[in-house]
């Protein structure tokens, strides 16, 4: 502690941002060293909601541990469940029915849109525009209702389980999703114009929080954060899982390397997701929604690693099995943790007022970072 104090020059100021500061999106504490308005260092302090999910999973069976993972990145809980289910299926070599694959992809993409919509509203609110927050929450509500019909939950779904999905789709699913597609197509351009074209918004984002391509790779950034820096890292394209290799969609890449590029990537990704949903919604194959599996799952001895693309980037699930009903060691490589590590580098030399814009475009979800 003494060393740290002496490393600070005269005239420097240390301020705490958060936890529970309106701009930190959750319980994240940032200790910022400032010289005037210029940021010299940003130190994230984590762990306010650390629940040691990895330790908990060691005493839960392969059917039970899915439920805990919904609580990591709560905005893309379907995709978290998906990653874990894939890892168990890979270990046990379970082949899942075609219907389950399509349902999983549909749910993933709906989640991605919901997550990006929430981010879009929160992002605009961080920069001082309040209306987009209400608009995006209103549209997101439509997706949450669709989820509620089928999964029974609005946030922590626990719907994708090893072997398929938990229950079949609600009879109203297709009708409601089609209504949502229509609504999205109507509103999206309008909202896009409202915020993206706004000159105040643009000038607060452009050339703020610059992260070069090399740095993005070195810091282990993935997802829209890295794609805004020109790295192609979409797991759905690079290592396709389920039926992503049969679908037509583009990997959105921007090369501006700044906050505005990361913003554009997420906005454009919503359009890609809606096009994936359009391709699938009339083509859900008939059949079982779950493969026949044993009541007690036992993974063979060995190590299994799967990765999926969540709304925030690459989620890796690493299971070390000793052949028992519970994992010997499980590790979640969460996208937010690596993305956050780039914050200090991005913020250094910037202004304190821009810090919020940088954090906003990293799209941090704290339970995902703390786990």
């Amino acid at each position, binding site marked *: 502690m003494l060393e740290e104090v002496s490393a600070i020059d005269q005239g420097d100021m240390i301020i705490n941002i958060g936890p529970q500061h309106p701009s930190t999106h959750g319980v994240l504490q940032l200790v910022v060293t400032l010289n005037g308005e210029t940021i010299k260092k940003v130190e994230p302090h*984590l*762990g306010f909601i650390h629940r040691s999910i990895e330790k908990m999973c060691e005493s839960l069976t392969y059917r039970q541990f899915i439920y805990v993972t919904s609580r990591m990145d709560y905005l893309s809980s379907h995709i978290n469940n998906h990653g874990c289910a894939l890892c168990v299926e890979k270990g046990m070599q379970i082949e899942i029915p075609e219907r389950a694959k399509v349902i999983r992809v549909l749910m993933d993409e709906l989640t991605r849109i919901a997550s990006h919509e929430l981010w879009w509203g929160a992002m605009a609110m961080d920069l001082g525009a309040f209306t987009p927050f209400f608009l995006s929450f209103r549209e997101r509500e439509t997706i949450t209702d669709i989820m509620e019909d089928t999964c029974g939950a609005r946030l922590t779904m626990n719907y994708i389980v090893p072997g398929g999905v938990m229950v079949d789709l609600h009879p109203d699913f297709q009708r409601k999703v089609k209504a949502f597609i229509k609504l999205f197509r109507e509103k999206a351009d309008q909202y896009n114009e409202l915020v993206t074209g706004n000159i105040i918004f643009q000038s607060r984002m452009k050339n703020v929080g610059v992260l070069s391509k090399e740095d993005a*790779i*070195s*810091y282990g950034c993935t997802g829209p954060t890295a794609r805004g820096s020109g790295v192609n890292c979409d797991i759905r394209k690079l290592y396709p899982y389920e039926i992503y290799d049969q679908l037509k969609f583009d990997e959105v890449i921007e090369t501006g390397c700044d906050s505005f590029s990361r913003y554009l990537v997420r906005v454009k990704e919503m359009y890609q997701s809606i096009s994936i949903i359009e391709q699938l919604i009339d083509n859900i194959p008939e059949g079982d929604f779950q493969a026949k599996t044993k009541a007690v799952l036992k993974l063979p001895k060995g*190590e299994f690693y799967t990765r999926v693309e969540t709304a925030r980037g*690459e989620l890796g699930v690493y299971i070390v099995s000793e052949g028992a009903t519970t994992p010997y*060691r499980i590790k979640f490589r969460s996208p937010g943790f690596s993305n956050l*590590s780039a914050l200090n580098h991005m913020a250094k030399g910037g202004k304190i007022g821009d810090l919020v814009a940088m954090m906003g475009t990293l799209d941090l979800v704290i339970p995902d970072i703390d786990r």
Partner: protein
Amino acid sequence: MTNEELKIKLTEVLPSATFEEGGEWVNLSVAPAEWKPFAHQLRATEGLDFDFLFCVTCVDWKTHLSMVYHLTSTKHRHSIVVKSKLDRTKPEIETVCDIWRTAEFHEREQAELFGVDFLNHPDLRKLILTDDFEGFPLRKDFEDPINMIKL
């Protein structure tokens, strides 16, 4: 590059590496003392170019600890898994955060959860746990009678 070609290339770089069979990726073990120079070569050698460290983990095997590094090359799209056995009573390994900067956070996390000492790491303070926390919670022999519920 296929896994076989990659194995030949890796043996040229580090003759003492031992390979494990199975798994989708090339799986090799190095001694902790050899890890840092090997890591430099993995990053810099033409044809390998491992520039993306995507997962850093530690596993407690009760007799020893094992560090696990997952690496990928964004240029050639091949991946490897590097493991290193550490002594459980005095786990020490060189940091690689000057080669892959993402390692700084990941190593801090593993240091507090497993008690691994990363030599020459710039800042090994606790990241997730509170500063006065004692013990290493992800080790298999960790006991906490108050907060841990045994099923």
